[in-house]
């Protein structure tokens, strides 16, 4: 029995302050594991929960923002529209850290158009897709990320090619692209910590098997199938600022990248070739090769540390737009000057 006082992070909050409501998802759902990693990552990063805004679309995954960071405002919006909703939320108050949780139906099908355009704009947000290749709430139809040849629970075989959201994100100019697996805390926690600090869209495609509709023999997204096909691009570690406590410090030949807040990212190579995360082409090549081998390649594919988020590209002031009212109204003289054109 431990009776010590709960530890506070550098923002002065305990880990419990990052918790949310009780999940209503299926027992054992990969999404709940991701939720717990999100709680841990935000606690570790020491982000003030009042400075976080949570977003989602519609679907099982989109319910999860209710299950973490209950001190943060949340917006469970409409199907496929998380990206533009987030764009508006970001521009109205660009001082907030945005985290959006979407699913493969929400992002790769109904919201695909919105998704790719948000990437072009580089809205500053963490964009997670909890990807299971299946529509859970409507009971097991294939999504657009299901693999060709995968078998549904009802026995249908998927005749279509899947959309690789990471390859798409790379094509669209996304400034932070990664893939992980819900069961891989060692990889996901460093990625989330990096995403929290990224000044642009940080996209993480998280393979999260659906235990109700895609965890059977013949499904390429069952826990067993994903574990068997999961190949990591590199090993990741993350060291929080002002502390030398290592969270995950991979052994072996490694690169260290220091971030603006003093935290450090460690990337250790796993094969003879070291994947250069600053090379978009290399990332695309790696993804295509893995796809040909029917592997789930995970890890950090691409990272542009010079990323300019939308609010900066649009030259918005440091005061959030939503706090501006009367002061935006030009003077009487300006109105006179303008109306003179119509006399």
């Amino acid at each position, binding site marked *: 029995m431990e009776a010590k006082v709960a530890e506070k992070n550098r923002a002065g909050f305990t880990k419990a302050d990052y918790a949310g409501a009780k999940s209503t998802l299926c027992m054992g759902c990969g999404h709940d594991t991701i939720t717990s990693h999100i709680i841990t990552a935000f606690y570790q990063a020491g982000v003030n929960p009042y400075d976080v805004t949570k977003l989602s679309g519609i679907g099982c995954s989109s319910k999860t923002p209710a299950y973490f960071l209950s001190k943060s*405002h949340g*917006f469970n919006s409409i199907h496929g529209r998380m990206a533009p909703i987030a764009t*508006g939320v970001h*521009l109205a108050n660009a001082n907030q850290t945005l985290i959006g949780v979407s699913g493969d139906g929400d992002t790769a099908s109904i919201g695909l158009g919105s998704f790719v355009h948000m990437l072009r704009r580089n809205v500053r947000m963490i964009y997670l897709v909890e990807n299971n290749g299946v529509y859970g709430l409507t009971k097991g139809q294939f999504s657009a990320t299901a693999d060709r040849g995968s078998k549904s629970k009802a026995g249908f075989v998927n005749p279509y090619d899947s959309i690789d959201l990471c390859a798409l994100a790379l094509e669209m100019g996304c400034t932070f692209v990664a893939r992980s697996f819900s069961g891989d805390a060692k990889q996901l926690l460093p990625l989330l910590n990096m995403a929290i600090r990224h000044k642009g869209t940080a996209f993480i495609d998280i393979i999260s098997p659906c235990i109700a509709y895609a965890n059977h023999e013949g499904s390429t997204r069952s826990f067993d199938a994903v574990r068997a096909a999961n190949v990591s691009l590199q090993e990741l570690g993350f060291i929080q600022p002002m502390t030398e406590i290592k969270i995950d410090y991979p052994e072996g030949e490694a690169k260290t990248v220091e971030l603006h807040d003093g935290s450090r990212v460690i990337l250790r190579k796993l094969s003879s070739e070291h994947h250069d995360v600053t090379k978009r082409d290399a990332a695309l090549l790696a993804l295509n090769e893995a796809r040909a081998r029917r592997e789930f390649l995970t890890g950090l594919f691409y990272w542009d540390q010079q990323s300019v988020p939308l609010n900066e590209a649009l*030259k918005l002031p440091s005061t959030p*737009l*939503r706090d501006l009212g009367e002061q935006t109204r*030009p003077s009487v003289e300006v109105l006179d000057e303008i109306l003179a054109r119509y006399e």
Partner: protein
Amino acid sequence: MAQVNKFSITVATANGSGSQSANNILARTLFRMGVPVGAKNLFPSNIAGLPTWFSIRANEEGFTARQRLADIAVLMNPATAADDFNLVRTGGYVFLNSEIKIPEAKIRPDVQLIKVPFREIVQPLSDSIKLRKLLANIAYVGVLAELLKIPQDVLADALTHQFGDKQKVIDSNLNALLAGRAWARENMGDTLFPFRTRANACSNDGKIMIDGNTAAGLGLVFGGCTFVAWYPITPSSSLVESFIEVAEKYRVNENGERDFAVVQAEDELASIAMVVGAGWAGARAATATSGPGLSLMAEAAGLSYYAEIPAVIWNVQRVGPSTGLPTRTMQGDLLSAYYLSHGDTKHVVLLPGTPGECFYYAQTAFDLAEILQTLVIVLTDLDIGMNLHVGPRFNYPHDEMSRGKVLNAEQLEKAGEFKRYKDVDQDGIPYRTLTGTPHPAAAYFTRGTGHDESGLYSESPDVYKNNMLRLARKFETAKTMVPKPECDTRSGSRIGIVMFGGTHEAVGEARFILQKQGMETNCMRIRALPFCYEVEEFFDRNERVYVVEQNRDAQMMTLIRSEMPQYWQKCHSVLEFDGLPLDAETVVEQILKVEEELRKKC
């Protein structure tokens, strides 16, 4: 004797031929002379080549609605010239580009035909064929100006105004003007032209000539708009472009920082979603669109209504259904705007009728959206939005911007409790908090799914029903806040005319015509939905009411029938839906037809 300040001109050209500037110069000249004037551009959905017609109506009595037939036509388009003879009334004048050959049979004997050699007139003015083609347009303005006795100085000023600081352009166009005038003097000097102008020193004092889209864009600039997301669509694009142009000039600080954001979205699904996102986070956010875009916005409109998020849509109506006639005008989106989205939804709809109201309602729409925490749709149309209208100069908006019931950390602390959807004040309007409010009670979870007073997910029948009843109560509150109708009551009359939007131009003239025939009418221009008490009062005061609207299915009448069933039997429809701005004759004819039927019945 010549008719003074009372004539209409229609110019037929090809789209993209540069005639727009010439027409605007002529209209602005008349305006600056103090002549009541209106200008309507009838254009195709095309970049260049298809026929376009521009009508200018000068009218001493102030009636500037479209007329079915013109007094004067200028025919510059070979493709349509033969048929364009029909634009003119009997006894009218046709100025035909002499290069256009017309089959003898098409030439009407009941009009005066004047062939003008525009090519020869502009030949000496430039070596460039392209420029000469453009100058031919200004030459017809010169010809008309000479015959209508328009002072050259006013005309030259309007021309300079049109071309701004492009001195070379001004010079060549001035020469073309003079060449046109000279031709008319030399060749028509002794013609007794039956129309002329006379400057009225003061009748347009304090007025401006502007289109509704430009005015609405200005309204957004002065009404506190900080966020616009849009997808270009005719006829609404110029509204956002007006905002961008002015905001880029006057709302950028010395560091180059903008106090507004504009995002051209990938589609209307995204543009309204961005507006809802920004509105939720507390910005005064708007989008502009037209019918097809409004249809795409339906789902997010329901989210705004049900999750109670401020948002503003400017819908500049064009002709539907489907892609319809993209460059023609209609009042066909009234019902779809009011009920936009599935389930029980009703939205506050503002119905400006003039550019002035477009300007003022920009702030009104934001205020109402933030006070009521809901979607507000402003319905204008192509006629209001893209045609030039003369009206009073806009007053500087001094009214404070209302930001609604938003609680900050301090207020939350004092209140002790915060429930997002609780009807604390019994007006149906709850309190909200914004992202980033540093208080443990501030956060809530917004959802378009069923929710209780705290915003928590709920499928409880009672919770759902009570929430929907509260939303209905909020809509009742809205009735006390929306713009009231504009009424004109004549003593003794028990016959009313009801209208909305820009049809007042035609209705005003129709009432004048009816009055001359002994039929005095009262009039009400509805300026918002839901119907407020004053609207009901008007129906109470009248025995018989004509509801004038530009659509096939009598959409306003349908709303009157459903929202105020006690009155609908008093109502008769006056409908036109040919895509053109309404004319007075149509209104008069339809009213007199019903009056005649009623007399027979008695």
